[in-house]
């Protein structure tokens, strides 16, 4: 337990010193501010581009558009950036040989993997909370009258999918021991999820439904209960992947 806490502290300190923490927080903060702004200004920008004689009627921007921007940015750019930043989670320390020193001094391998996952989870939670908070405040400022439904649950789905993806990333990192292999395997896992989604019956239980169905949730065209299966499976898989990562890493030749 002391090993776990010490290693967790070291991990957080490392992310701060390598500026990864700064990048993550600034990017998510910028997304958080620009989401409502882009939603608000898009009709005007398009309107100013139109030449004389042609009229485009754009519907007036609503809070719904701001949240569309939020979920689009957070799931695409946000998750991609997170995965790329964390891709060296194991490989950099293995290639430099700094981890081996700690392990030979008696730090347990389980503690290493668990501390790494905890640290990634903490950073992801902080980033998504920051992005959500800023979008919420500014959406309220720009579109005071509008209401969207199921907002907390859809953000929770996005957060859970991020946690699931980080578990996949950690397992890939343990399996491949290189940052490119880790990225490749994580990408392959997402593609596999997308492919499984082709089967209609699997859609309810596929973790990727957590990020593909959010717009329906906000529009209230999809019932919250239809995603419970996917939430449960994503949670189970994340747990399974982290445990697998621990088990494999304990046996792994470094």
């Amino acid at each position, binding site marked *: 337990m002391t090993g776990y806490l010490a290693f967790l502290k070291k991990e957080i300190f490392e992310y701060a010193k*390598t*500026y*990864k923490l*700064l*990048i993550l927080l*600034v*990017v998510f*903060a*910028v997304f958080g*501010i*620009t989401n*409502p*702004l882009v939603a608000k200004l898009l009709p005007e920008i398009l309107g100013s581009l139109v030449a004389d004689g042609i009229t485009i009627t754009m519907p007036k921007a609503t809070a719904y558009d701001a949240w569309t921007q939020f979920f689009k940015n957070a799931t695409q750019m946000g998750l991609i950036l997170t995965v*790329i*930043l964390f891709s060296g989670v194991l490989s950099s320390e293995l290639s430099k040989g700094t981890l081996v020193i700690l392990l030979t001094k008696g730090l347990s391998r389980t503690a290493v993997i668990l501390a790494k996952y905890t640290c990634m989870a903490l950073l992801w939670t902080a980033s998504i909370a920051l992005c959500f908070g800023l979008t919420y405040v*500014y959406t309220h*400022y*720009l579109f005071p009258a509008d209401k969207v439904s199921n907002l907390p649950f859809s953000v929770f789905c996005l957060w859970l999918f991020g946690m699931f993806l980080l578990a996949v990333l950690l397992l890939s990192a343990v399996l491949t021991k290189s940052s490119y292999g880790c990225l490749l395997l994580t990408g392959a896992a997402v593609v596999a999820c997308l492919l499984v989604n082709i089967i209609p019956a699997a859609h309810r239980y596929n973790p990727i439904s957590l990020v593909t169905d959010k717009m329906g949730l906000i529009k209230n065209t999809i019932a919250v209960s239809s995603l419970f299966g996917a939430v449960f499976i994503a949670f189970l898989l994340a747990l399974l992947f982290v445990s697998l990562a621990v088990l494999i890493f304990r046996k792994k030749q470094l």
Partner: protein
Amino acid sequence: MDLAMLREYLPLLIPLVILQFALGITALIHVLRHPAYRFGNKVMWVIIVVFIQIIGPIIYFTLGRGED
């Protein structure tokens, strides 16, 4: 964009500008104080960090920053 509109968007623009500058200045200080890069030289990185907003510093910190 007229003045009234600008005033409405000011609470959004000010934090955005502060964030951009904070990131840019942090990266600029790092570029100047650690002259070892994975590739490229000092002039190139200063230009990238100063003139490409947000993306420039991110590229520097993720790809260009040398080992300390």
